[in-house]
């Protein structure tokens, strides 16, 4: 419950934030804090300094391009995504965000934080992977864009290097999406999850079965093809108190089918 001593800064601009992060490899960006502060409470991780992104306007807002492309600022909260008219261009985003944790967490937690935390039980890594989102990362050296498929490197690890920030998530146009999960209690933590998109080919991203989302591209949307694709992935999910590796492997198959069927309907 009690944090180790930590430094804090609240920069007003992106440039300042990146400077502060680059100045100390022990510094971490503080977005909504709904994971980071808990980890610090457990003293399971202790940044030397927190760079609070709350004051940076550039990181907020949702824009819908003429071609239906969504550009979502990394500091956009789940609540903002649920309420956003623009975000309805890709309805699954609001639907899934509405299932994350609870009102309080949705009011503080951000899409950028959810992705950068890269906790295997998070909802958005598999969803963004399935939607083919692109992540814009900014550092001292400038800006680069990384596809979701290359963004996640491991638990709590992403392509965002020390001294860099995830600034924007770009989601291409589309509507044929689905998401299915078995959670701990109703709308609780994911035990296993699957996101699917059938816009231009079939893409499935499985959550909770590995450190990062497992992305699959089955031959078709048929149940059998989907099940086949999951089996061929030779998943070796972690076991924990909520699910054996065998159970998670099975759920991955069931949920992939459900996500694809939702995406088709």
């Amino acid at each position: 419950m009690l944090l180790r001593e930590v430094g804090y800064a609240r920069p007003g601009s992106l440039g300042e934030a990146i400077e502060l992060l680059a100045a100390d490899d022990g510094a971490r960006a503080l977005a909504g804090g709904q994971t980071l502060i808990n980890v610090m409470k457990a003293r399971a991780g202790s940044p030397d300094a927190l760079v609070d992104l709350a004051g940076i306007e550039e990181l907020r807002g949702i824009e819908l391009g003429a071609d239906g492309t969504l550009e979502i600022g990394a500091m956009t909260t789940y609540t903002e995504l649920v309420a956003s008219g623009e975000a309805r261009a890709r309805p699954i985003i609001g639907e899934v965000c509405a299932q994350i944790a609870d009102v309080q967490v949705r009011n503080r937690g951000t899409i950028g934080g959810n992705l950068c935390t890269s906790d295997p039980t998070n909802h958005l890594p598999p969803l963004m992977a399935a939607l083919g989102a692109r992540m814009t990362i900014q550092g001292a050296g400038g800006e680069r864009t990384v596809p979701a498929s290359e963004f996640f490197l491991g638990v709590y690890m992403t392509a965002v290097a020390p001294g860099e920030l995830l600034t924007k998530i770009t989601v291409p146009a589309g509507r044929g999406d689905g998401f299915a999960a078995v959670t701990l209690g109703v709308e609780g933590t994911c035990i296993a999850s699957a996101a699917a998109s059938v816009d231009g080919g079939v893409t499935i991203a499985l959550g909770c079965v590995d450190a990062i989302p497992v992305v699959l591209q089955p031959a078709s949307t048929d149940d059998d093809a989907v099940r086949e694709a999951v089996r061929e992935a030779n998943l070796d999910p972690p076991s924990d108190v909520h699910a054996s590796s065998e159970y998670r492997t099975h759920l991955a198959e069931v949920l992939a089918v459900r996500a694809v069927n939702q995406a088709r309907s």
Partner: protein
Amino acid sequence: MNVSGERTFAAPRSAVWGVLNDPASMAKTMPGVESFDIHDELRWTANVKIPLGLGGLKMKIDMAKTEERAPEYAQLNIKGQGVGAMLSMITSFELGDVDGGTLMKWAADVKLAGPVGSMGQRVLQPIVNQQVQHVLSALDREVQAAVAGGAA
């Protein structure tokens, strides 16, 4: 938790063995090493900061070689004490010749306790796998470097 695997190095067994038994080059394979003290060829200590995305995990890690059959087998007993965690690990590797290089069969029994444990098993197993992969690829680099160095 038990993790194990195999890895083939495009290098002669002697080179691989050399790296695995040289604390200095082993140090280069460990994640986030900040300092390293060699007590004798059987015991050494590393101060590491395992780079977790949410802030590093500082640990003092004592390693002791408990068994050795050069140039094929060694077992290490590793104890880590950190603020967030207690690590205890027994790891062993066995080297064998295969065409094109050396096959290393390795296994580790990892026990992690303390606040980090309270973060939930769901993240621990992937984190351990992650760090193991890190060590193995670093090992690869070290072996290649050793081979290159030896050639030069």
